[in-house]
């Protein structure tokens, strides 16, 4: 593999609260190659969004604090870059799509002007008219009908899906090489979700931007991403190619997630949920954070005392479980298929 576009190493983010220090992200490492779509899945509070926000330096500090790690983006460490450099990178090289298009657009500013803003913050010499023309073009690109009229409207005159399209237009305005989409479809209803996903895929193909796609929807990941990271309690539990992870999960948490999905193939009427609750991140976790809920590790000493490292179980497939072998035995052959390196 050549030099990755983004190389996150040992990222740790903490928040100071009245109850103590919350370890929101705890030693996360991953890479994103040029043009690749990486899915990040995990339940609420697993540190997906915090990881993404801290990459762009958008974590409010205090109370947040980036305790450790580095985020190399095209040779620049984003965690140590100057404010000036970060402003250049934000929006120009890394575009961000927010979860809720209802609140991520300024309600008293015309949509066209907001898209133009994304252009004009980076190209000061662009005239307001030229930026607005580009905004029209971008809106057309993301499939907003009558873009000439739409740029003059306010966000409240847009529907939810339309607003998310406008957000996508803003994010791709400067042809970034990396897009971060933070649950872009969560606030939308299902039919619009499909349209927006389709749009995102096309925008991604058009710009060739690598994409980090954060979601808690495994179905969306399966549809969109090439590689996937499963996060839990601020750590990466498993990472690998989407097909491998779905066909041959090697971490009990991933297994649990897949079991709790409704499936057309399985005959059972009942979904199997994962028992218990995610751990309290106020205390540092000695062993595996999933251990109390884990069928394999619940009674094992090593799981509660020693933190399992994220180790390769096959090329391009890593699992943070002491006993990943016990899970892999079911279909050992499948592990090697679909792995891209």
């Amino acid at each position, binding site marked *: 593999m050549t030099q990755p576009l983004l190389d996150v190493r040992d990222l740790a983010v903490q928040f100071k609260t009245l109850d103590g220090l919350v370890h929101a992200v705890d030693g996360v490492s991953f890479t994103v190659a040029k043009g690749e779509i990486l899915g990040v899945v995990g339940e609420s509070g697993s540190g997906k969004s915090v990881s993404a926000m801290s990459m762009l330096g958008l974590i409010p500090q205090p109370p947040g604090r980036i305790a450790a790690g580095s985020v190399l983006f095209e040779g620049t460490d984003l965690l140590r870059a100057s404010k000036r450099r970060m402003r250049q990178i*934000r*929006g120009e090289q890394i575009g961000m799509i*927010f979860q809720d298009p209802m609140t991520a657009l300024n309600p008293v500013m015309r949509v066209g002007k907001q898209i133009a803003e994304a252009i004009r*913050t980076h190209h000061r010499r662009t005239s307001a008219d030229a930026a607005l023309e580009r905004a029209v073009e971008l809106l057309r690109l993301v499939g907003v009908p009558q873009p000439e009229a739409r740029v003059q409207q306010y966000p409240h*005159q847009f529907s939810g899906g339309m607003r998310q399209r406008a957000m996508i237009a803003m994010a791709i305005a400067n042809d970034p090489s990396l897009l971060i989409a933070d649950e872009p479809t969560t606030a939308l209803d299902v039919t619009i979700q499909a349209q927006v996903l389709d749009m995102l895929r096309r925008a991604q193909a058009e710009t060739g931007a690598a994409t980090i796609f954060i979601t808690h929807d495994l179905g969306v990941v399966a549809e969109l991403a090439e590689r996937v990271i499963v996060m839990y309690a601020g750590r990466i539990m498993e990472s690998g190619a989407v097909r491998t992870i779905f066909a041959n999960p090697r971490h009990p948490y991933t297994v649990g997630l897949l079991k709790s999905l409704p499936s057309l193939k399985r005959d059972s009427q009942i979904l199997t949920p994962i028992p218990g609750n995610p751990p309290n991140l106020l205390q540092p976790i000695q062993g595996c954070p999933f251990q109390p809920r884990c069928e394999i590790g619940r009674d094992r000493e090593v799981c509660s005392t020693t933190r399992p490292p994220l180790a390769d179980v096959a090329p391009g497939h890593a699992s943070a479980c002491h006993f990943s072998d016990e899970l892999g035995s079911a279909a050992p052959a499948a592990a090697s298929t679909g792995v891209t390196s």
Partner: protein
Amino acid sequence: MSLGTDVVGPSGPLLGEPAAPPPDSVSPVLRRRSPFMLGLRRYLHNWLAVAGAIVLLAFLVTVFILPLFMHLDPYAVDLTHSRQPPGPGHLLGTDGTGRDVFARLVYGGRVSMGVGLAAAGVAILLGSLLGAIAGAFGGWLDTVIMRAADIFLSFPSTVVVIVLAGVFGPSVLMLIVALGVFEWPKSGRVVRSVVVAMREREFVQAARAVGAGRGWLISRHLLPAALSQIVVIFTLTVANCILQEAALSFLGLGVQPPTPSWGNMLTDAQSITVINSMPWLWVPPGVAVALMVLCVNFVGDGLRDAVDPRQR
């Protein structure tokens, strides 16, 4: 805001919801109105605000434009015709040194309103800037600025102006600066609170994510959000500054004679004989100050209701 009509042709089937029509509109044709027109309409519905604006406009015209067409000399002393009651020669009579009261009222209005507007302008500029900086940056800068505001608020400004007048000598410029410096904390606090509330909104985060710096955020997203409050506080501050100017000039610490101002014209009303037998010397400037302040306040209230985007 532009005056241009926002009429979007017949919406295509894909374009859903038309903008909700104003509830009081019974027009069968759904037309989109620009925010400016909506605001204007709300303003015109408030008859007190309209009346205030008309009287205010009449004041401004009289004070700033009338002297261009009519010969008025507020300094011409005529000791043979002192303290004359209102009559044909002198519309509002003459004062103790035979100067025309109407001329002095008009020119005094220039000074009083000029000082009021300028001082309020200084106050709002300072307040918006410092408030926005405090709100947007937070941390120690916020603490320093807001504690400074508290200090200014806890000083009796009149006393400080008296001291300043003693040190630098009373002058119009000193009055403007002193009033402006003491009036800024009110606008500063309001702007800061709006900015702090806005700062954590997701669209501000989104603007940061597309690369907006602090200055950009303040000028494009944070200050405009406070604009309606700023306008209202500006008008209220104008009213307050006019009052303060009148009070200080009345005490002989503001505008110095022979330059007329509404405040120092009222100085004449310090003697019982004038109050009893020569009302033309103090009623006109007194009424002018009261009416002016009242009108400015009405206009401010009207603007607040008209500008507030949350009522849209």
